[in-house]
């Protein structure tokens, strides 16, 4: 689990893709598909470490 001192709520997180509009619907569907696959045992979901998700400096983000 990536560190967060706050419990963000799994359902509230996945909902955000839907709330992002049309572009997010594909992301939500893809995320749910990958969750479904990992639940069926095709690809066990390993715990993710904080090291794997270092913050992206502003100049490197698509969004900045």
């Amino acid at each position: 689990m990536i560190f967060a001192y706050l419990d963000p709520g799994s359902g509230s997180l996945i909902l955000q893709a839907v709330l992002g509009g049309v572009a997010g619907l594909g992301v939500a569907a893809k995320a749910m598909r990958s969750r479904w696959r990992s639940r069926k045992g095709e690809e066990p979901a390993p715990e993710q470490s904080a090291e794997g998700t270092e913050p992206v400096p502003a100049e490197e983000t698509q969004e900045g």
Partner: protein
Amino acid sequence: MNWADPGSFRDPASRVVLGDSTVTRILDERGLADWRALQASDFFGRATAHGRLIATTEVDAPEGAAGALAHPRIGFITYPFEWTFSMLRDAALLQLDLMLEALGEGMILKDATPYNIQFVGGRPQFIDVGSFERYRRGEPWIGYRQFCRQFLHPLLMEAWCGVPFQPWLRGDPEGPTSAQMWRLLPARRKATPAAILHIGLQARAEARLKGREVRRSLAEAGFTADLIRANVEKLRALIDDLEWDSDDGTWSTYHGCDHVARDRDLKTEFLVQALEAVSPATVLDLGCNDGHFSQVAVSRGADAIAVDGDEVVLDRLYRSLSAGTPITPVLTDLQNPSPSQGWAGVERPALFERARPDLVIAYGLIHHLIYSASIPPARVVEWLASFDVPVVVEFVAPEDPMVGRLTANKRPEELHPGRDRESFDRLVSQHFRVVREADLPGGTRRLYHLSR
């Protein structure tokens, strides 16, 4: 002497230490790196200059810490359950505006709680710079659920359901869950896209996915900050459009009462003399109504804590404040003022532990406590004395027409004894010295400037 702020311990990257006149934020390595990114951003300077974000300077780190920041001390802290509808709405808009500005520069707010916002000079100010962190690619908005529970749902409760949010937030500071909020919504509101998406769908998703790992799945599926931005912009528009139908407050027509207009000038003059004698830095205006006497205190150089139990009048006062006016509205029922609560019962101190006035104003108040709330007169005077500062108080005799209205449905034996002026004078003499007193024209009201 320094001590840990009892309300700042949840985020291990950043915590606050208080001194007699200082506020220091202690950072770990991660918190320091986030601060450096914030400091380098354009929006940080803009938001600080406008007072939307608390002034911050980096200072020498104490031993064992990676970094430290200094902030100005906020004179008086309030909590969301003491705010009016417009205060919570303005706080929510500030939270969302800062989110959008932060996202524009590769940063984000890691949480979304109104406890990170205070009212300074009549306007909301974001005080927790430790909440800003660098955005991690593919991450959703961690604070979204918290934003819904502590901002959106309480605002909708008042605007859409006509139910005040403050008792709920005081009872449960985390705020209503989406499932609880869904059950509260009237049928016609349930049919709106905002209710379906933010509340109905969130409640279902929460129930179905509880405890499941989804962050990695979202990142792999191509989640971007643009999706957060789209959501925040829509939330902002929704909240900006919310209106609260607030025309039925008990005291909203109070200033139209005959005695109020008649006595106002004399009460103002009496207060001004007390203000000149005491020179208070802070006044506590109990039962402030439209805030006229708080404004008088401010015009004489004091800060005012304006307390009332009626949301309609207090919301009107808040909306009337021009930027920089040092009046902080506080919504609380004086029969049941905010207690000390939170973790270990000390995280959020009681209202009268936070409010440390140099002068108390109790105009048009104590007869309501005595006749409506059935507080014995001796208890009321003891309570006023407990502030241990000078008090300007208005005594209202049993013969007053307002008392007649308050007691219209009470039998005399249902009222506490000792409500006459002689009894009041006797009680006062047990706790105070009378500096000055003056009768008001109607013959049933008397002003006292009392000193300990």
